[in-house]
C-alpha cells in the first residue's frame, strides 16, 4: 500500500468530513473577510491599497484554514511548519526576484507615487496604470498595448507621473532668422498665448533666448496649460506660430550656410543642362 493511501485509510470518515467542512467554511470566511476589509479600506484610503490588503487578508486566512483542516485530518502542524521553514528557505533562494518585487510593491504602496488611472512614464514606456499588484504594475500604452512592469523596475528607475498635477508647462523651441526683430517675435508669441483660451494667464507665458544656432536665433516659448489640453495646445501653437509669423513677415528659415572665399579671383560657375552646356563667369 502506498504512503498516501495508507494515511487515508487511517483517517476516520468523521474527521475527513470535518476537515472538508473547515476548508469550505474557511474559504467562505476568507472571501467574505477580504471583501469586508477591502470595502473598509476603500472608504478610508484608496482602491489600490484596498486591493492589496484584500489579497493579503484572503491568503493569510486561507493559509490558516488549510493548516487547521490538515491538523483535523491528523497531519501535525509542527511537522508542517518545520517543512514549510525548510521549503521557504529553498524557495527564498529560488524566488529572490519575486520577493524583491513584493517588497518593491510595498515600498511603492507607501510612496504613493501614482494611482490607478494615472498616466506614467517609465523609461521609454508611457501608459495608463491599469493595476498595481504585489509583483507588478500593469500599464496600457497610448497604442493600446498591455505592458507588465515589475515593481523592482519601478522602484529602481525613474517614474514620471504625467497626471499628478493639474497644470503643466509646454515648451516650444522656435528658430528665427538672424535679421528678425526679436521684440516683434516676442510680441507675436505672447499675443498668440493671450488670444488662446487654452493657455493659462498665470503662470504667465514667457519667451526666453535660448542660443545662437547655426542658421537661426533660437528662442524658447513656454506656456502653462491644463494637462488635458497638451495635444490641443501643441497643435494650436504650431499652426498659430506659422500663421502669425507669416502675417508679420517673420521668417522661420531653413538651415543655411554662409561661405567665405579666401581668394578674390573671379569664381567660375558651371551649370550642366542635359543636351546643352552653358558657361558663365561671375563678375570679379
Amino acid at each position, binding site marked *: 500500500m502506498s504512503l498516501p493511501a495508507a494515511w487515508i485509510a487511517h483517517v476516520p470518515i468523521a474527521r475527513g468530513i470535518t476537515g472538508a467542512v473547515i476548508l469550505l467554511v474557511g474559504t467562505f470566511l476568507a472571501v467574505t473577510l477580504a471583501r469586508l476589509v477591502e470595502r473598509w479600506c476603500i472608504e478610508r484610503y484608496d482602491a489600490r491599497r484596498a486591493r492589496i490588503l484584500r489579497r493579503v487578508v484572503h491568503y493569510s486566512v486561507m493559509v490558516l484554514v488549510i493548516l487547521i483542516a490538515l491538523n483535523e485530518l491528523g497531519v501535525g502542524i509542527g511537522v508542517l511548519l518545520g517543512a514549510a521553514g525548510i521549503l521557504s528557505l529553498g524557495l527564498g533562494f529560488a524566488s529572490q526576484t519575486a520577493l524583491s518585487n513584493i517588497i518593491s510593491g510595498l515600498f511603492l504602496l507607501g510612496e504613493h507615487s501614482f494611482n490607478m488611472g494615472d498616466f506614467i512614464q517609465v523609461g521609454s514606456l508611457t501608459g495608463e496604470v491599469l493595476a498595481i499588484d504585489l509583483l507588478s504594475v500593469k500599464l496600457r500604452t497610448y497604442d493600446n498595448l498591455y505592458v507588465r512592469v515589475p515593481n523592482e523596475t519601478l522602484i529602481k528607475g525613474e517614474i514620471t507621473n504625467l497626471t499628478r*498635477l*493639474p*497644470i503643466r508647462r509646454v515648451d516650444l523651441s522656435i528658430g528665427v532668422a538672424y535679421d528678425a526683430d526679436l521684440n516683434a517675435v516676442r510680441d507675436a508669441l505672447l499675443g498668440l498665448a493671450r488670444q488662446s*483660451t*487654452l*493657455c*493659462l*494667464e*498665470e*503662470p504667465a507665458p514667457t519667451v526666453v533666448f535660448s542660443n545662437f544656432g547655426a542658421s537661426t536665433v533660437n528662442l524658447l516659448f513656454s506656456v*502653462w496649460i*491644463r494637462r488635458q489640453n497638451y495635444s490641443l495646445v501643441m497643435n494650436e501653437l504650431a499652426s498659430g506660430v506659422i500663421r502669425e509669423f507669416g502675417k508679420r513677415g517673420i521668417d522661420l528659415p531653413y538651415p543655411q550656410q554662409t561661405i567665405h572665399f579666401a581668394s578674390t579671383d573671379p569664381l567660375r560657375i558651371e551649370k550642366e543642362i542635359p543636351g546643352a552646356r552653358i558657361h558663365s563667369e561671375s563678375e570679379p
Partner: protein
Amino acid sequence: MSDWWENPYGVALGDALTLQVGELDFVAERLPSEWNFFWNYRMGGVTQPRIDRKTAGSAEWAHWSSCRYPFRDPPGSLAFMPQLADRPLVTKPVMPLLVPPAESLTLWISSPLWCRLEVRTEDRSIPLDLDLPVLRFSETWFGPDTLNGDLAYASTTRARMNPYLTRDEWIDFRIQTPVIIHNEEAQVIRVERLNLPLPACGLYLAQEGLITDTLVWHRAGHGQKASLERIPPVHGRPVAPPRQAGNVSILTRAFTRLFD
C-alpha cells in the same frame, strides 16, 4: 432687466430656436424623437440677446459643437436657466486698488452668466446637463506655487463702487458679486487679484439685477487672521443654488484666499 432666461420658449416640431447672447450662438432643434443642440462662439459677440426661430436642419450650424437628447415624446418648450461659473473667477483690477487703513468699501465685480438648459412639458421640467457660458473665459492658476492652488477663470475688472451696469456693459448676461473689504490694519492693502469662489455662491435676482452672495472680507488689526464670510442678499429671489454647496474643502480653500 431682460427676461430672456428662465421663461420657457415653445418650439414646434421641425423648428429651431436660435439664441445669440454674448459670444454664444446657440440653436435648439425639436425633432419628432429628440432635441438637438448646436453651439458656437464668435469673436466680439452681441450686447443684447437675440432670439429667433428658423427651420431645423440648416447647414448654417451643421459644423458647430453639438449634442442630441432622445425622448419618446420630446417636450414642447425649452428654458435657459441662469447659473454661476463652474470654477472660481480670478479677476485683476484694471488699475491696482489700494485700500487705506481703517477703510471699508464695497466693490462690484461682474462675471458672465452660464446657461443650463431645461426642457419642459406642461407639468414638469427636465434639467439637461448642457451648461454653457455666454462668454469664453481664459483660464488661470491661483495659488502660492504650481503645486498648490486651483484652476480658475481669469478676467479683468474695473472694480466699480456702484452696482449699476450700463447697457453697453452687457447687463443682460452679467452677474455681479458685491465684495466688502474691511481693512482694520495699520497698513494699506494692495488688491492686485481677487479670487471669487463663484461655485460656492448662490445666485439671486435683486434690484441690481442678477447678483451673488455678498463676500465680506475682514482684516482685523494686531496681526489677526483675515476672515471671509458669505452672506446672502436680504432682498433677493433665489435663482440658482451654489454649484458646490457641499464641497467643504473647496469652500475652505477659496474662502481663505480671496487675495493672492
